């Protein structure tokens, strides 16, 4: 009985002394094993005196080992491998190195900046050209048709492909007649007309000459009025001719030029008239707000305000 009490006391004393004299990291690593040894050693002794002597020997041993472990812990901390481990240690080293070598640091910052810039640019292009769908109904079923000229060696930097050259009216007519691949086909070309602005000055306004199915193909319904009717379009000598006498305004142009007046429908573009024949076309519809002209079709020309 007495032996058991002494054994329990010795073990408890060893446990508490461990907490006092050993660094926590060492205790976490070896504490359990040490206690198992002390327990086994105390169990192997019989009689309270022998157990007490064995316990005292272990306690003294612990007191001797403790300072050495604390010295080692402090050394590890100074080396940066103690509690300051892993990512914090690496960050500390990185910061100190960067401060010590400003030119190298500048180079690193510029390199990273260039890398991020280049990646952002490439993503922007890929997003605009490949990822983001066109702002039209059934965008995935739209395709641009054009001519590839064998003599043209230029490459579109955005797509990496040879650019499509415009089709002539004759080619387009031939294409429409023989078309079996596309549900609908429409054509457009940029142009401009001369109109008077609100103050009476004559100005150029960018327009889009379109075939009659153009807006139906893009899935665009007008905000006011209507789009073109089949009998309002005939192939002229050239699509650029704008022979048709009806016009559709973009929402923005309608707001700016006519103050959003709904009675403008059925009126000519330019009541007073200019020398430009097209300026006398009758307004039959207003496109919805937010409609975007297909960028790829107008190249460097300004987006049309009138169709």
């Amino acid at each position, binding site marked *: 009985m007495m032996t058991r009490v002494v054994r329990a006391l010795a073990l408890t004393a060893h446990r508490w002394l461990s907490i006092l004299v*050993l660094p926590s990291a*060492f205790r976490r*690593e*070896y504490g359990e*094993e*040490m*206690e*198992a*040894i*002390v327990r*086994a*050693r105390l169990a192997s002794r019989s009689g309270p005196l022998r157990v007490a002597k064995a316990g005292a*020997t*272990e306690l*003294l*041993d*612990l*007191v*001797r*080992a*403790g300072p*050495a*472990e604390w010295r*080692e812990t402090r050394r590890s901390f100074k080396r940066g491998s103690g509690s300051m481990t892993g990512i914090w240690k690496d960050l500390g080293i990185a910061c100190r190195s960067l401060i010590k070598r400003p030119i190298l640091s500048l180079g690193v910052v510029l390199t990273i900046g260039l890398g991020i810039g280049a990646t952002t640019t490439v993503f922007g292009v890929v997003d605009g050209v490949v990822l983001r769908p066109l702002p039209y109904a059934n965008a995935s079923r739209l395709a641009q048709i054009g001519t590839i000229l064998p003599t043209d060696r230029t490459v579109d930097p955005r797509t990496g492909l040879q650019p499509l050259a415009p089709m002539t009216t004759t080619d387009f007519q031939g294409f429409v007649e023989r078309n079996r691949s596309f549900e609908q086909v429409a054509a457009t070309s940029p142009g401009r007309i001369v109109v008077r602005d609100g103050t009476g000055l004559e100005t150029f306004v960018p327009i889009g000459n379109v075939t009659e199915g153009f807006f139906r193909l893009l899935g665009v319904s007008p905000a006011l009025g209507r789009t073109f009717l089949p009998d309002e379009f005939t192939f002229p000598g050239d699509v650029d001719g704008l022979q048709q006498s009806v016009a559709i305004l973009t929402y923005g142009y309608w707001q700016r030029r006519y103050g959003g007046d709904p009675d403008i429908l059925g009126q000519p573009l330019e009541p007073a008239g200019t020398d430009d024949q097209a300026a006398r076309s009758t307004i039959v519809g207003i496109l919805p707000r937010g409609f975007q002209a297909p960028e790829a079709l107008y190249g460097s020309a300004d987006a049309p305000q009138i169709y």
Partner: protein
Amino acid sequence: MDDQPAVSGPLFHILLSLADEPRHGYGIIQEVEVRTGGRVVLGAGTLYSAIRRIREWGWIEEIDAPEDGDRRRRYYRLTEDGRDVVRSEAGRLQSLVRQARDKNVLDTAAESAG
């Protein structure tokens, strides 16, 4: 190995006890006690302080418990570096003993005992 710290008595005994087979901590203590006839008794603190150091130096390594071992205990094995250290230290001690013998400070009884 040139900047290897001096091998103290307890360290040498621990390494020597692992020379023939892997052991757990209490196994090392028992082997040393038996081998030295009870003259060297390692405490748990001394043992694990030494184990911590010689593991860092790569002289011993921890292994899984052998098939017939106690799975609750952590076992250690001598590495090749550790074996070199034991060999080198034993050679140094042998050389010392030879020098002592040359000086006739060892009598036959002491020699056979030691």
